[in-house]
């Protein structure tokens, strides 16, 4: 937008503040307008990605593989692949007829180029680079074949190849990749091509006629950047937006609002969980004992909280392996509410109640700890903490609450200066949770509490190396049983994500990773009366 135009508008605003104007023009029922809550950090497809830019990138360019609606790998630009018996080599066979949005064919050299960009620190490809850590070399014997060599077997090696591909002939021209021409006008091989970006306002994409799966049915995907969820919700009600994931308070409101009656709605479970890290490095006398950790969870009536406080938009979790995953042992149930069992475990661990209604004591020390929370971002954290405080008080435990701004909170967790800390956490559909539980993940990983158990370490390492799916599932079922017994961290809830959309926008489905970054995603969206894919 030019400065002159804005000044002109400002001058007009002064001249006629009270002038009434016509309402917005009716929009063509061929576009889909969706909301994201923050500016994408980069449009360069792989550079400096946050969640928003990753979602947009997944619309512009495909990877060799993608998650399907269940979180399994589906073939995309790679039609098939062979894994060598030693699992140190994977050979990808690229699909015929896949073209970049400028008409040039996609080749294996483009894939090799993409990896070279991801590995360049100047590209800041932080969420992709670690997935390629074990890749030692690539070969491109012909345009359709890519051979990848690994330093060690990794059962989730395919995960990295979801990376959106870059066209070498266009993306190699910029010396400063993040600020060059390509980053401002990305070209991919995905279902939608980039049209325009107004910073702070929107990103507009349009259907790619030459898409290898066939042109998407919706003509344009308008991604509105709306920082206030209330504002986004109101524009959904006004018909200025067609689809939006809403927070639980707006969902509740929409259930009783006559203006929201016409909207279609559904909820789905994302791979997002609320977990508590218990610091068990010996700096406090409480949480090195698994009985104390388990007792605190027995003290919580999670079913009641989920049903009443959050209107059923959450469910108690058994652990960090969620029921959506094919790797989860369905026989492991969440720890039930049982205050008597909580008391028994605490007694057994040596924390005794001196008098009814008092705080438990062991060796003269009271069972009193501080729970760290992230301030401001989500009021649900306050509600969970207040409920938990009251629940553990009933079994003689004194929990105090300390709230910190996100980076300060994260600094305390990473340097292990806390007793307990609660935050939400996103997990991947892949079953490898090495960085959550392995003893080596205390520094640099997400094992903030410093949990250390040789059997867990062994199972985590075996899970990474076991390629056969049945054998691998057996490893992860054993791991889940071990984690359930030791409760190294406590996953309280899995929250569901409500979605509201125009009832005429059909084909909208969700996956455990959201509404966009999976196949089919928006490729299958279509307006009532239009064909699903042209």
């Amino acid at each position, binding site marked *: 937008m030019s400065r002159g135009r804005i000044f002109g508008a*400002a001058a007009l605003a002064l001249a006629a*503040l009270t002038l009434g104007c016509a*309402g917005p023009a009716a929009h063509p029922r061929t576009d889909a307008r969706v909301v994201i809550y923050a500016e994408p950090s980069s449009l360069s497809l792989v550079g400096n990605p*946050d969640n928003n830019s990753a979602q947009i990138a997944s619309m512009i360019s495909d990877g060799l593989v993608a998650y399907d609606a269940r979180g399994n790998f589906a073939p995309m630009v790679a039609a098939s692949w062979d894994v060598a018996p030693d699992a140190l080599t994977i050979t990808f066979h690229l699909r015929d007829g896949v073209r970049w949005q400028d008409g040039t064919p996609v080749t294996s050299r483009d894939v090799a180029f993409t990896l070279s960009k991801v590995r360049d620190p100047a590209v800041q490809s932080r969420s992709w680079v*670690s997935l390629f850590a074990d890749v030692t070399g690539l070969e491109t014997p012909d345009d359709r074949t890519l051979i990848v060599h690994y330093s060690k077997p990794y059962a989730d090696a395919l995960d990295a190849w979801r990376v959106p591909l870059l066209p070498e002939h266009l993306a190699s021209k910029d010396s400063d990749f993040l600020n060059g021409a390509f980053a401002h006008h990305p070209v991919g091989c995905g279902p939608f091509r980039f049209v325009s970006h107004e910073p702070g306002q929107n990103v507009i994409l349009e259907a790619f006629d030459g898409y290898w799966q066939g042109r998407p049915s919706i003509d344009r995907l308008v991604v509105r*950047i709306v920082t206030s969820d209330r*504002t986004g919700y109101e*524009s959904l009600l006004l018909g200025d937006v067609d689809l939006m994931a809403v927070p639980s308070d707006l969902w509740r409101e929409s259930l009783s609002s006559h203006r929201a009656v016409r909207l279609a709605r559904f909820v789905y479970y994302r791979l997002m969980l609320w977990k508590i890290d218990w610091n068990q490095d010996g700096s406090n006398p409480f949480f090195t004992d698994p009985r104390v950790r388990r007792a605190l969870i027995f003290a919580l009536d999670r079913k009641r909280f989920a049903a009443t406080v959050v209107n059923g938009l959450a469910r108690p979790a058994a652990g960090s392996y969620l029921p959506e995953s094919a790797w989860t042992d369905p026989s492991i149930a969440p720890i039930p509410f049982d205050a008597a069992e909580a008391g028994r475990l605490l007694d057994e661990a040596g924390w005794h109640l001196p008098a009814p209604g008092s705080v438990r004591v062991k060796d003269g020390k009271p069972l009193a700890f501080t729970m760290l929370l992230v301030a401001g971002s989500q009021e649900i954290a306050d509600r969970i903490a207040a409920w938990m405080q009251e629940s553990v008080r009933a079994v003689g435990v004194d929990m105090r609450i300390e709230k910190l701004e996100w980076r300060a909170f*994260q600094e305390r967790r990473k340097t292990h200066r806390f007793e307990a800390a609660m935050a939400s956490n996103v997990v991947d559909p892949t079953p490898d949770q090495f960085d959550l539980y392995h003893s080596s993940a205390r520094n640099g990983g997400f094992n903030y509490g410093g949990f250390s158990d040789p059997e867990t370490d062994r199972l985590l390492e075996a899970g990474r190396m076991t390629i056969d799916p049945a054998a691998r599932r057996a490893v992860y079922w054993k791991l889940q049983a071990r984690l359930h017994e030791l409760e190294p961290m406590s996953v309280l809830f899995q929250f569901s994500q409500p979605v509201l959309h125009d009832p005429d926008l059909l084909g909208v489905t969700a996956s455990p990773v959201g509404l966009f970054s999976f196949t089919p995603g928006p490729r299958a969206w279509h307006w009532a009366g239009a064909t699903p894919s042209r």
Partner: protein
Amino acid sequence: MTAAARRLVTAAVTLVLVTLIVFALLVALPGDASGDDETARRLPDEYRAALRAQYHLDDPLAIRYARWIGDVARGDIGASLREHRPVAAILRERLPASLALNGAALAVVIMIATPLGIGAAWKPGSSLDRAGLAATTALYAVPVFWMALLLQWLFAVRLGWLPLFGIEGDERAGGSLARTADIFRHLVLPVTCLSYGSLAYVSRFVRTALVDAAAGDGGRPARARGATALRYVTVHGTRQAAVPLLTLAGFLIPRLVGGSLLVEEIFNVPGLGSLLFDSVLGRDVPVVLALTLLSGTVTLAAITGADLLAAWADPRVRHGR
């Protein structure tokens, strides 16, 4: 050294001190911009080290600040640690919206508050004076977020006259006149929210300046010569009140580049307020320093300019009497 030169040197030193304090506060906060967030996967150690080196996060603080001030002296305000692009490019995107919004709000305030102040000063204590005071004070007491939601509900939801948010519609087709009208429609509600709260302050300031001037040395002779009440307030009073009014302008002009986080968030305006907020939370030191430098420069320039103009308008100020 002349008085004016002394003022300029003081302003420059103040500016450096302000950025130094902001820098020190930012680096004293826990956490940095090295890219840890909820969904980031564990980074390879050598890659993490390369990132930190790229942005000099491990250098001594004095060197980091000295490097920044040296770059600024050469006209380079650095690159954002979060967005990895030049801060100047980010400001170029954000500044127009803030200037348009705040400029329009400032103009609305002056155009409404000045006549209110003159009217009040015309007959101090009259019913006009008291009604103006009551109305503007009542507006001053209304919280902005509440007013914003009320206006959105009324004009966007109920009546459908104005857009709910944004500074421009999605459609780029149409001539520049249509586009200008579109931007204007988007600006009405946020400008209203940004301006109503200042009416009380500015109109009272104008009134007090005029009343004081009228009571002073210039007022009585004018009245003695038979000037009407209105004429003495508008012509003689304004001339006498030039110094306090210039001071007021010195305080109002910096608002042009100041952000209003609440209004920007509610109306989804990509301005400087939300940029500052996000940059502090993200520990994006170069962006926060650039915004400090920008608002500091405009503030000092406006105040210094107002002082110099006041000295020119009133010899007593010039000669320090």
